[in-house]
């Protein structure tokens, strides 16, 4: 085709109406002239008219060929079909609404899930060249990752050559006095290169300079954009302000550009300058992040860091030298295997729902196609080619799918809005879940694929066959091969739904198991909160101990509070503080978790004492040092058969003194053994725990544990006032019931459960609707047969049971396929289940039962209607 002609064809598209009119008048002129000639040859007016038309050929065919010649016929036809399709859809609003609704559900769920997956797994992290950002761990043993000491960090910085920037951080929580009530603000103390690691710039002012983490450290702050807006009212003169943090004035030197950090808990950063004690301490308390130099691979840096490790460990013991330094990409750290698996499974579930939705839509289209074959036969008689008819039917489907896609995007937006709090908790802060262009593109693609998937077969099927046959068939209003295909589709739907329903039931059972996990503590009626004692007003351990005393006294006086306990770590959460315990005469250290508790702790949480005594009010700073250990630790001690034998033993335990990460290994006596309380995630054995009296080893971060008489919520006000009466400048941390904490830490592993549950219900409903459609269709086709049978003496009950049998047999075949599917997915499910087999017979049986019930229900309505058939009416209708 020449370029000239192509240009004409494009132009023709725009001048469609005019060209069409011209063609019309040309043809009319042609016929008029032919008629005139025929009249001249002596034919009658009537005969002349007929003769002109005969010689001309089919007027509509000529027009069709003309259109095809003059323009891109497919584009032209598409526009026409679109208009025609919209009109046809507007004609049957019920059909349109149900198809669009079903598709919106399927596509919406998928678009929402895609946005989550995209934000977490597909998009690069929202930092400059994120692949170069790494976390540097110490791995004292393989598989264990540990924080780093200041001494090691400084050695790495001196020796490692692969980093463009290397920075250490330590999380903080401070009281911000900004006029009015003090508020708790989370922040980080970081070394000067921190923002170079993340490639983040300041919008106002600047970030840290190289000398600001030297010496005593400058009293300066960098704020996140969100903190500037929310906590400082977006004050344009922020750089002149000196907010009081923990009672000390700080100069704000910069506000970051808006970005990923705004979604993090961290609101501010201050320089981390190491004190002389910290520089030599062996305590591991720093998280280290680095930016790799251009072109350095992860393997290279990991290899070279081994040499650095060897250098720093020269003087260390044999055992300590077993370790390694592990350099890991930030992305890998933020998005763990578990999260990836959960998202993949949830995505799989919504994809199944979409497949089922497609099956339903294909079914509806087939049913609709059957009623339209007459219309199509007429169009074909008027000169439409088969290809044109298929194209037209496909276009109608496309219109439906695009409408469904658009509704789906709206639904996805609503879903994401509702799920925001859950997502925020479950996803890393770097993931910004939004319906962006990528999500819209995904929605469009899905709509197109769905249109092809659901439209092709019904379109070909419907437009198939000769003219006479179609007209004939239309008169009878049924077709055998349609029915077969529709049955196959329903069987597939039932199978897919069963997979989802079984998956949901398995996750539900796993969730129930998680809820029954033995926590070893009193969870009901317990409320917790925390305070952080600032160094400025609590410089010494004695001052801190006085605060504990005072706060406990005030809390115990609050009406409605039964018991009060203080501790360094929240119950039911992992104890991040790892220390070492040394038995006399043993070189090998026992690794323990350390928790500091006050005399009220064990009683408040109902933790039973197994031997010796608990922590008492007599265990003050001046009294002999004691510890209480848990059962798990007692079992690890040398030569301890029964827990009683541990009591009275003297061991050494490392415990950093108040406010400074320094090595300190005092000798202590084991005063008692308590039953283990749960600290690890589900499936993890109890760690060995050392409980140290708080008065003997005070800390700045304290959890307040309060057992209420009845309603935990009722004592919150009293709790706040009690703390304020001791120190009015001390803000409280988050107030949460232990039940909330348990839900967060123990049932977190099964978060996709409720999501998949919802989708399973939708899938089962869709399968039920599909089944209903097919059975109802079969029954309506067989009205005549049923009528005859009833006239011959069949009872309603026989008809009912026959139709139901039909439905149940479809369901049973589907269940067989579904069970095979469930079997195939065992491996995937296994990693998400806690103490439940992926082939749990109860869950599988319940899933099958549910589907059979749905099948019976879907079959019952048409069956009941069939049984009510009046033989006389039907036979007369169809005779």
């Amino acid at each position, binding site marked *: 085709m020449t370029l000239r002609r192509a240009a004409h064809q494009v132009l023709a598209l725009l001048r469609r109406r005019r060209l069409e009119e011209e063609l019309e*008048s040309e043809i009319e*002129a042609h016929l*008029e*002239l*032919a008629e*005139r000639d025929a009249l001249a040859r002596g034919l009658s007016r009537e005969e002349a008219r007929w003769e002109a038309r005969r010689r001309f050929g*089919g007027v509509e065919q000529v027009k069709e060929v003309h259109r095809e*010649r*003059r323009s891109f016929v497919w584009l032209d036809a598409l526009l026409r079909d679109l208009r025609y399709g919209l009109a046809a859809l507007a004609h049957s609003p019920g059909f349109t609404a149900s198809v669009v609704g079903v598709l919106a559900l399927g596509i919406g769920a998928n678009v929402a899930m895609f946005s989550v997956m995209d934000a977490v797994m597909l998009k690069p992290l929202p930092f400059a060249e994120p692949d170069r950002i790494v976390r540097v761990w110490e791995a004292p043993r393989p598989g264990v990752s540990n924080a780093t000491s200041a001494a090691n960090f400084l050695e790495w910085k001196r020796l490692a050559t692969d980093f463009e920037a290397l920075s250490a951080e330590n999380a903080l929580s401070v009281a911000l006095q900004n006029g009015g009530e003090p508020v708790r603000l989370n922040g980080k103390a970081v070394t000067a290169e921190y923002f170079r690691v993340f490639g983040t710039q300041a919008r106002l002012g600047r970030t840290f300079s190289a000398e600001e983490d030297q010496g005593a450290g400058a009293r300066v702050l960098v704020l996140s954009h969100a903190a500037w807006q929310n906590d400082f009212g977006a004050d344009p003169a922020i750089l002149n302000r000196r907010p009081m943090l923990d009672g000390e004035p700080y100069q704000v030197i910069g506000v970051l550009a808006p970005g990923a950090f705004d979604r993090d808990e961290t609101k501010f950063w201050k320089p981390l300058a190491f004190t002389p004690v910290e520089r030599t301490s062996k305590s591991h308390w720093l998280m280290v992040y680095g930016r790799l130099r251009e072109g350095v691979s992860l393997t290279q840096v990991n290899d070279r860091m081994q040499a650095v490790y060897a250098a720093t460990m020269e003087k260390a013991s044999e055992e300590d030298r077993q370790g390694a330094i592990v350099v890991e990409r930030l992305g890998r750290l933020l998005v763990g295997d578990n999260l990836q698996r959960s998202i993949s499974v949830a995505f799989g579930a919504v994809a199944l729902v979409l497949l089922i939705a497609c099956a339903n839509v294909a079914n509806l289209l087939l049913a609709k196609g059957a009623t339209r074959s007459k219309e199509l036969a007429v169009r074909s008689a008027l000169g439409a080619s088969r290809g044109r008819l298929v194209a037209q039917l496909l276009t109608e489907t496309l219109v439906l799918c695009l409408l469904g896609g658009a509704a789906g995007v709206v639904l996805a937006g609503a879903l994401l809005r509702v799920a925001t709090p859950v997502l925020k908790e479950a996803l890393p802060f770097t993931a910004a879940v939004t319906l962006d262009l990528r999500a819209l593109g995904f929605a469009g693609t899905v709509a197109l694929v769905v249109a092809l998937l659901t439209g092709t077969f019904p379109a070909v099927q419907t437009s198939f066959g000769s003219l006479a046959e179609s007209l004939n068939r239309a008169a009878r209003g049924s077709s055998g091969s349609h029915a077969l295909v529709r049955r196959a589709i329903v069987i597939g739907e039932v199978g897919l739904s069963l997979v989802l329903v079984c998956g949901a039931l398995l996750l539900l059972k796993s969730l129930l198991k998680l809820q029954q996990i033995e926590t070893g503590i009193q969870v009901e009626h317990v409320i917790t909160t925390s305070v952080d004692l600032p160094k400025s007003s609590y410089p010494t351990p004695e001052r801190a101990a006085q605060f504990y005393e005072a706060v406990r006294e005030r809390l115990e006086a609050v009406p409605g509070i039964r018991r009060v306990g203080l501790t360094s770590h929240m119950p039911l959460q992992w104890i991040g503080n790892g220390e070492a315990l040394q038995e006399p005469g043993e070189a090998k250290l026992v690794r323990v978790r350390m928790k500091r508790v006050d005399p009220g702790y064990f009683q408040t949480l109902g933790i039973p004492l197994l031997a010796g005594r608990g922590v008492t009010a007599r265990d003050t700073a001046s009294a002999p040092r004691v510890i209480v250990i848990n059962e798990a630790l007692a079992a690890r001690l040398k030569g301890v058969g029964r827990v009683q034998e541990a009591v009275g033993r003297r061991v050494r335990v490392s415990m950093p003194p108040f406010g400074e990460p320094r090595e300190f290994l005092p000798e202590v006596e084991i005063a008692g053994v308590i039953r283990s309380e749960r600290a690890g995630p589900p499936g993890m054995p109890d760690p060995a725990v050392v409980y140290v009296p708080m008065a003997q080893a005070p800390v700045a971060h304290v959890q307040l544990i309060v057992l209420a008489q009845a309603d935990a919520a009722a004592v919150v006000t009293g709790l706040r006032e009690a703390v304020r009466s001791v120190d009015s400048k001390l803000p409280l941390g988050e107030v949460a019931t232990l039940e909330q904490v348990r839900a967060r830490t123990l049932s977190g592993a099964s978060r996709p459960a409720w999501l998949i549950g919802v989708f399973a219900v939708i899938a089962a409903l869709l399968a039920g609707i599909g089944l209903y459609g097919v059975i109802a269709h079969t029954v309506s086709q067989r009205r005549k047969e049923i009528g005859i049978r009833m006239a011959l003496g069949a009872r309603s009950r026989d008809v009912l049971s026959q139709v139901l049998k039909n439905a149940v047999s479809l369901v049973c075949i589907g269940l067989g396929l579904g069970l095979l599917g469930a079997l195939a997915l065992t491996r995937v499910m296994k990693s998400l289940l806690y103490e439940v087999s992926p082939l749990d017979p109860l869950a599988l049986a319940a899933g099958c039962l549910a589907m059979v019930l749905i099948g019976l229900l879907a079959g019952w309505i048409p069956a009941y209607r069939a049984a009510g058939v009046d033989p006389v009416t039907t036979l007369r209708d169809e005779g």
Partner: protein
Amino acid sequence: MSKQQAEVPYGTLDLLVLRTLAVMGALHGYAIARRIEQVSGDTLQLSQGSVHPALIRLEQEGWIQTEWGISETNRKVKFYSITKAGRKQLLVEVANWEKATSLVARFLEES
């Protein structure tokens, strides 16, 4: 209509239309169709309507041009006439046709 009628050989309608216009000057659609029928001595089974799609294609290729005129029935109709490019194309089409027929003729002689 007892006369034996032949169909228009495939792909030759363009040639017939161009040739007609080259000989006759400007004509409207009906006249072109009639002329082709007459020249063939009414042995050609031509659906007269099929000249219209052929005309739009030739026009788009730039081989013929149109102007509005008045028909014998006093109607505004398009008159088609051959362009310079059309005459060139006619030579090409004639050459192609002759090549094709001589090829077929040679095959027929051989057997």
